[in-house]
Structures are given as C-alpha cells and as structure tokens.
C-alpha cells in the first residue's frame, strides 16, 4: 500500500516538474573568475550577469552563481568543486591555467554539467572554449601596424607575462604576420607583465635605445603607458603603435589624433559564452561543431578592430562611462541562435 502511494506521488511529482519546464525553463549557471586584478574582469562578470537577465524576456530563467576572487590554481579548482556540490547545470570558467582543469572538468562532465571556458583556452576535451582566438588577436594588431608603416620600418614589441598562454599565442600571432613583411624589422621584444607602469617604463627605455623606432606592438593596458612615453618624448606624430580599448585611452586617442589601432578583446566574451551555454543546455546543436584551436575544442568569436575609421563609433559606445570602462561587444541571443541548427 505504502509503496503504491510512493509511486503515485513520484509520478505526480515528475509530471509537475516537466510541466514547469514547459512553462519556464530554469538553468543554474556557475561563473568562475580566478583573478580580480583589473576592471576588465569586473566588467566581464557584470556583462555576463546582464546577459543572464536578458533571457527572462525569452521565458528562460537563468540563475547565475558567481565565484570571483584572487585564487591560485587549486583555489579555482575548488571553485569548480563548489559548483559541482551546488548542482549547477553549466559552469563557465575564465581559467587560471590552460591544462590544470582536465581532471576536474572530467568530473564535472561525469556529473552531467556543461563546461565552457572563456577568455583563455583549456586543453580539456570535456570543455568547450567560447572566446576569441588570441593568435588572431595578436595578428590583427600586427597586420594593422605593418600596413600603416607601408610594410617597412623598425618595430619593437612590448609583451605581457612570459609563459602565460594568451601572451605566447599573441606573440606567435604577430610573429606570423611580420614574416610576410620582410622589410619590417623587429629590433627588440620586452616583457612588461601587462602592467601599465611597466609598459611606460619599457617604452622609455626603448626610445632611449632605439631613437629611430617606427612602430610598437603592445598589448592591452600597457599601450596607454607606452603611448604616455611616446607623447612625453614628443614623438606622437612619428610613431605608430597599437592601442587599447578603455575609455580613457579612446578619449586620448580621439583628442590627440594618435596613429593607433586597437584589437578588441571584449569583456563581453563571458556574456557570449553564457548565451551559447544556455542554447546548449536547451539541447540545441551547433551548425559547425567547436573543433578549432590547438585543443580542438574551440569556438572562436569574431574580433572587432578599432582604427581611425571607426574610432568615432567606439567613442560613442563608451561615452558617459567611467574611464576604466572597456569597449565591448558580445553575441546577442539572436547572434548566438544563428550559430545553432
């Protein structure tokens, strides 16, 4: 008798669940960020949260759960463990290491959780990378510089943290491009650890050592520092250098008519990844499976580029925002849907 009641109740319960699913889908998504040293990361999280809100209009309830703190690699593995314990449907990670997450992602997948990495690629076959191709990112800036210099001149590179995967890929990207321009001579490469002050210092040293330098390849926030040194040296008109995407720099760029071009690494990547994740959770299938990149698990997003032609549009987007706000772009829900069957 008791058994019978139990079965009956169970049936009712399962009917109730499927009914509610039909009305409003509910997904719980964990977002993990292992480094909070820049506003870019904060903006990344905020945009992802906003993207989750947008799904309400589509009748999908996306609940995000965020872990964002300065942690070491084991600390971020613990993030993932916490998400597994919490029972989320999907995990989106901006990973501190490309390879260290293989075992824990395998466990997550075993637990039926969708795993997506963004901003930095991971080697795990159990995860999908949704983000930009850092090699292409590096290449785009170099290509702009080479063309701006008319295919010849002396160039220096100011790179980020040696040994960091994104940095190594970007370096590979610009090297690949410069190979096609035999008259471009890379006279020196230095590491300034993605630090604006170090970037400024490095540029000062470069200007002292190579007064006849024509172009500079420099990444992200270091660009603002490098440009400061170039302007201080009064060489604004003589040197072309890549730029960055924060409002402060874009304002300076417009005002002083810098000869610059910035590849955009939009903080919206995590929002894009979230939209892709929800569609995947809904059981949709990608038109082209994510098999790009060195780990054969990547789905690359388009990389916007700002140069003098579209600078005004970029300035309009960041108008009224705080100085640290980055120019952004993300896949809208519709953009993302277009990628699925």
């Amino acid at each position: 008798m008791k058994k019978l009641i139990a079965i009956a109740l169970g049936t009712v319960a399962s009917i109730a669940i499927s009914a509610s699913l039909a009305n409003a889908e509910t997904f719980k998504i964990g977002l993990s960020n292992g480094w909070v040293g820049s506003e870019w990361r904060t903006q990344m999280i905020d945009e992802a949260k906003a993207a989750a809100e947008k799904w309400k209009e589509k009748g999908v309830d996306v609940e995000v759960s965020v872990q964002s703190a300065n942690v070491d690699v084991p600390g971020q593995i613990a993030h993932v463990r916490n998400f597994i314990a919490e029972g989320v449907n999907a995990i989106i990670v901006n990973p501190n290491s490309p390879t260290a997450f293989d075992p824990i992602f395998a466990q997550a997948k075993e637990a039926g959780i969708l795993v997506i990495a963004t901003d930095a690629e991971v080697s795990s076959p159990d995860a999908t990378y949704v983000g930009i191709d850092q090699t292409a990112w590096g290449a785009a800036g170099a290509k702009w510089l080479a063309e701006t210099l008319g295919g010849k001149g002396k160039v220096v590179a100011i790179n980020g943290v040696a040994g960091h995967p994104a940095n190594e890929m970007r370096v590979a990207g610009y090297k690949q491009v410069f190979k096609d321009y035999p008259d471009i001579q890379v006279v020196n490469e230095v590491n300034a650890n993605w630090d604006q002050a170090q970037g400024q210092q490095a540029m000062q040293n470069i200007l002292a050592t190579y007064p006849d330098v024509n172009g500079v390849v420099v990444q992200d926030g270091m660009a603002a520092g490098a440009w400061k040194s170039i302007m201080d040296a009064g060489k604004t008109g003589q040197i072309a250098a890549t730029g960055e995407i924060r409002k402060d720099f874009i304002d300076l760029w417009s005002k002083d008519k810098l000869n610059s071009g910035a590849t955009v690494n939009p903080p919206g990547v995590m929002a894009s990844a979230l939209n892709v994740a929800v569609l995947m959770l809904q059981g949709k299938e990608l038109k082209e499976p994510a098999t790009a990149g060195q780990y054969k698990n990547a789905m690359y997003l388009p990389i916007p580029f700002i140069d003098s032609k579209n600078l005004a549009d970029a300035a309009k987007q960041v108008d009224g925002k705080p100085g640290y706000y980055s120019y952004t772009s993300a896949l809208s829900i519709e953009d993302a849907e277009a990628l699925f069957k």
Partner: protein
Amino acid sequence: MTPTTTETLSSHAGGLKLWLERYPFLPALIIVVALLALNGAFSPNSLGYRSLTGLLSTYMALIMLAIAQTYVVSAGDIDLSAGATLSLVNVAIVVLMEKWGGGAGAVVGAMLLGVLLGLVCGVINGIVVAALRLQAIVATFATSIFFTGVALYVMPVAGTPAPALFWRTYGGRLLGLPFVFYVLAALALLLFLLSRTRLVTQLLAVGDDQQAAYQTGLPVVLIRIKGYALCGLFSALAAFCLTGDTASGDPLVGGKMTLYSVAAVVLGGSALAGGWTTVVGSLLGALTIGLVNSLVFFMGTPSEWQNFVQGLAILFVLMAGVLAGRRARA
C-alpha cells in the same frame, strides 16, 4: 622520574594550558570543525563524501606545502621559494613523464627525480641562508625567482599534460577508497615518524634560541640546511599532489601558494619566530584556508565582495586562534 614530580606538574600548569602544550593544534582543529559545520549549514552537499574527498585532493598540495614550510619555521627560518620549488618539480616531472612515455616506469622514475630535485632546491636555500648567512626572507625570495626561471626554461608555457596513469590514480580509487585517503594515511605515518627524529627536536631547539643551540654544541648550520632540505622534500611531495589534481605542468602554478603556506602555518598555531610549531596544525591551517574560501561562496557573498570577506574571515580566524592560544598559554 620520582612520584613527587608528577604531582607538582598538574598543580602548576592549568589544565587548558597543559592541553595546549601537548596539542598546540587544538584551536585550529576547533576552527576546522566549526567551518565544516558552517559549510554544511549553508550547503548540505558540501559535507558529502564526494565533496570532502574533493576538498582533500584539491588542498592536499597546500597541506604538503604548509608542512614543508613548518619545518623551516621550526628553526626560525622561512622559505619564500617553496611555491617556486613546487612549480619547478611540477614541470620537471611532467616533462620527464612525457619524455619517458608515460608508463608506470616513467611515472616512478620521474617522481624519484622530482624528490631529488626538491631536495636540491632545499639544500641550495639552506646553503644560501644558513652557510652564507643571508636574510632568509630576502635570500629565499631571490632563489624563488631563480627557481621560477629554471621552471620557465624547462617548460616555457603551461600546458603539457601529465600521463593519464598518474592523475587517474591520484583522482581515482584503490580497493574502494579514494586514493587521496591513502596519501593522507601515508602522510600521517611520515609525520609521526619525523616527529620522533632527532632532527626535528634539533630544529626546534635552534628556532628557540639559535645562540643557545650553538653554545650547546649543536651543528646549527647543518641543522638549518637539513631543515631546508626537508622543506624541499615536502615541496616536491606537494608538487606530486598538485600534478595529480591538475594533470599538467605549469611553471607559474606555485607562486601564489607560497604565502598561503605561510598563512596556513600560522593559522595552525605555530610561532613564526620558531621553536614552537605543529605540523598537524599546519595541515588544519591549510584546510581552514580551503574551507573559508568555500564558505564565502556557499554563504552567497556577492562576487565583488568575495575577496574582502575571505580576507576578513582569515584575519578573524587568525585572531581567534592566536588570542585563544596566547591566553591559554600565558
């Protein structure tokens, strides 16, 4: 010993004080239990068998590193290169395992060389600090940069995967029990044996009062070098656990862990000045750090406040432990 002396002992030292002297890790233990209870209250799942196993396998590396740090702290020294040593051993064994084909022989061979490498790093630190008499903080900071440089030479970019045999064993089960439990048991045995060695007593005597130890006729320089060697050895063991958990090599992975290891030592109830340390406390201190991080999340702290609350919580735990210990021992 005469019967009279045992009687006077209990009357002299208060009960709590005596307990703390014998088991200096008690406050840390209470804190860990309290944190487990809080984690359980906010997220019952987090006390599940699977979650606890996960906690242990993720924080085993920090536990090992904190224990490594404890042995140098015993002698009044410090090792800011422990994390860099971990990174170096991590990339070295991953590269060697890959080179040798990833079989059982390769794994064992690479681990033996890893232990040796850890010992070498430790001895280098010991010589620099004890024999050349450089300030421990500055000297080991310098060697940490050096070791990181070597690690970057061995593996310029994070990425080479460890053989599946290695990490599937670490993350897997043996005779029905998770492998980390065996690691924990082996660690407990090792710590028990070490606590009985002459070296550990000598390290503590040196940490207590280096001049007194020297005047007693202890070979102070040699003892301190051995302390650093022990630290290097445990840093290598930490690297094995980390490699087991992350299944890959990363030349920068340990950098952030160094200061956590120092924090764990203090959270566990050891005196950073030396002479009074507890390895069990350091183990609990490492778990405390892990549990605080999880608790902050399970409590539902907004993401922009997570670092703040974590720092505050660790500071609070530190104060509670240190004050309780100080009051009881005073």
